[in-house]
């Protein structure tokens, strides 16, 4: 049973446009959500997070939106840059057992 789902395996966007990466979850006990970015042959690096008590968190070009009723979150990158091309993992955390559950990832390609 996959509790964190990233249903689109890939996304291609023109440089300068907006990238929207989606993530859905099934466990209503998740209270904290994170996005990680991963380049090939490297470990993932933390990008941005959001607590379940908020519906938006912004950091520069990156904004994460959380819709708890729909159990859905999304990462917006504006404007997209070629250096943003990477795999993006959505992850969800339950404070009760401090486990972090990852989705399968989305490969973002930003075309120059």
């Amino acid at each position, binding site marked *: 049973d996959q509790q*964190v789902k*990233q249903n689109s395996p890939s996304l291609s966007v023109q440089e300068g446009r907006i990238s929207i990466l989606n993530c859905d979850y099934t466990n209503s006990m998740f209270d*904290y959500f*994170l996005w*990680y970015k991963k380049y090939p*042959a*490297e*470990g*993932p*690096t*933390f990008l941005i*997070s959001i607590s379940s008590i908020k519906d938006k968190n912004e950091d520069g070009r990156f904004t994460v939106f959380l819709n708890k009723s729909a159990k859905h979150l999304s990462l917006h990158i504006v404007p997209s840059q070629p250096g943003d091309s990477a795999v993006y*993992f959505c*992850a969800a*955390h339950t*404070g009760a057992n*401090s*486990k*972090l559950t*990852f*989705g*399968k*990832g989305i490969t973002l390609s930003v075309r120059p």
Partner: protein
Amino acid sequence: SQTIHQWPATLVQPVGSPLSLECTVEGTSNPNLYWYRQAAGRGLQLLFYSVGIGQISSEVPQNLSASRPQDRQFILSSKKLLLSDSGFYLCAWSPGTSSRRVFGPGTRLTVL
């Protein structure tokens, strides 16, 4: 500042051979340590985690084992590798029950 090291970076092993991957963390004490695997077409799967020396929790039944002989050292092992053990292995740490994971550079394991 904290750093996390993994070695080797790449490894090619025959089926049935043993495995030992090592991970060390610097600049922190009593970290939580984790082993993840990223297999082709799959997300980041948690294999083991440790909250202290000699304390190992296994998330999935498998051909692998983990040990924590020292506070900042985490080792992933196998007595006999299977083809299905191929993947990208990532060590990570977090302070206490923090939701964030800081990942190492990873080891690409190919079992032939």
